[in-house]
């Protein structure tokens, strides 16, 4: 059964995009394949690993648990929208300086989770940071340097 295509207009990283998509196209796949924004990663496709996390109207959500058609009229920020190579977001700088990434697979999902977190919690404790990242799985780092990076970023941003 072929489904009709739906027209969707969505703002991603400040840019407006319009595409015709199948309703079943996941937002994660839309960002990657329709828009070529490969920074958002696909891990488990059932909401537990956090690799697909993006900011949706400013809040972190699982892009693997939304259909692209549901983003109609909304604003999305992916890792590509947080900073540029010339001007990294302070959190990205802190991740770099504190060695908070190795393979980098989990990193975009962590960044899109932590940017809103730091906006609401500019001076977080270690416990608060660990709770904030508890929805993102990392197989490489053991999380300690990620916690260090968030503390460093909080300092940079204060």
């Amino acid at each position, binding site marked *: *059964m*072929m*489904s*009709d295509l*739906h027209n969707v207009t969505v703002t991603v990283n400040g840019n407006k995009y319009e595409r015709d998509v*199948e*309703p*079943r196209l*996941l937002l994660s*796949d839309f960002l990657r394949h329709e828009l070529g924004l490969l920074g958002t990663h696909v891990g488990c*496709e*059932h*909401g*537990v690993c*956090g690799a697909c*996390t993006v900011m*949706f109207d400013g*809040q*972190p*959500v*699982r892009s*693997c*648990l*939304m*259909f692209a*058609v*549901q983003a*109609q009229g909304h604003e999305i920020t992916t890792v590509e929208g947080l900073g540029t190579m010339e001007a990294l977001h302070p959190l990205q700088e802190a991740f770099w300086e504190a060695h908070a990434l190795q393979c980098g697979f989990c990193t975009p999902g962590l960044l899109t*989770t932590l940017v809103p977190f730091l906006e609401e919690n500019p001076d977080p404790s270690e416990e608060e940071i660990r*709770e*904030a990242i*508890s*929805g993102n799985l990392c197989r490489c780092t053991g999380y300690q340097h990620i916690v260090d990076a968030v503390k460093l970023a909080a300092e940079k941003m204060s």
Partner: protein
Amino acid sequence: MKPPPFEYFAPATLDEALALMAEHGYDAKALAGGQSLIPMMNFRLAQPEILVDLNNISELAYIRPSDDGGVLIGAMTRHRMVERSPLIAERAPLIYETMPKIATEQVRNRGTFGGSLAHADSSAELVAVSVALNARFRIRSQEGERWVSAKEFFISLFTTILEPEELVVEIAFPPMPERSGWSIKETARRPHDFALTGVVAMLTLDNENHCQQVKLVYLSAGDGPMEGCQAAETLKGQPLTAETIQAAAEIAASADIDPSNDVHATAEYRRHLAKVLTYQALKEAFERAISNN
């Protein structure tokens, strides 16, 4: 994996949504937050031919005080909103304490209060909480409206009393009775995993601080929300001592629940957990009931 093709509608009003549900009946599934339905669709465990997306119906998202001192929660209210609501903290402290236990923050930003309940996973905290608090569900169809108690609403795993053309629109919680205490205890191996098992306790004391009324409801301990009826019977009219609580916990774990074996835990371990958590929950509920005087 990816979902198979489906037809998609995104109505802007409840009336439009109900008309779609009436027209498409068995072939249609309502899409709320999608945090439970979409994983199932991604694995092709659920393959609805038609999705009716409720996320544009803003009239279904609200938290209001009700005249009897309780609260009314619109079905499409995001968990995030309930989690941060001062009204919920004041009038439904058990719900307030439960919200941060639901999945992760990212899931709570999209997931909805009514969606979790309508999905009726026996491992959902809100399912057990709604039974423990004697919630009532307002159900709409094109034909009209009906109210159903939480107990009647849940039939078995992923199965509710909803007819194909019906939608839950609101959940009503009565006020907390005087001299009441509450608790929710659950255990998982990793933070935010589905609980291996869990218990919700609601306790009301009489004038002598004996148990007037207690409700124990278990999650991930059977086919749906499991009530600790036999355990509750033993406590009626009794003082809540370490001994009486322990005895109740043992009865609940051995006789009231029907947990399963799976890769995460054996039924035997779940029973053991239920016993330990029941003790902790009753103790905490009692302490809260005392201090709420």
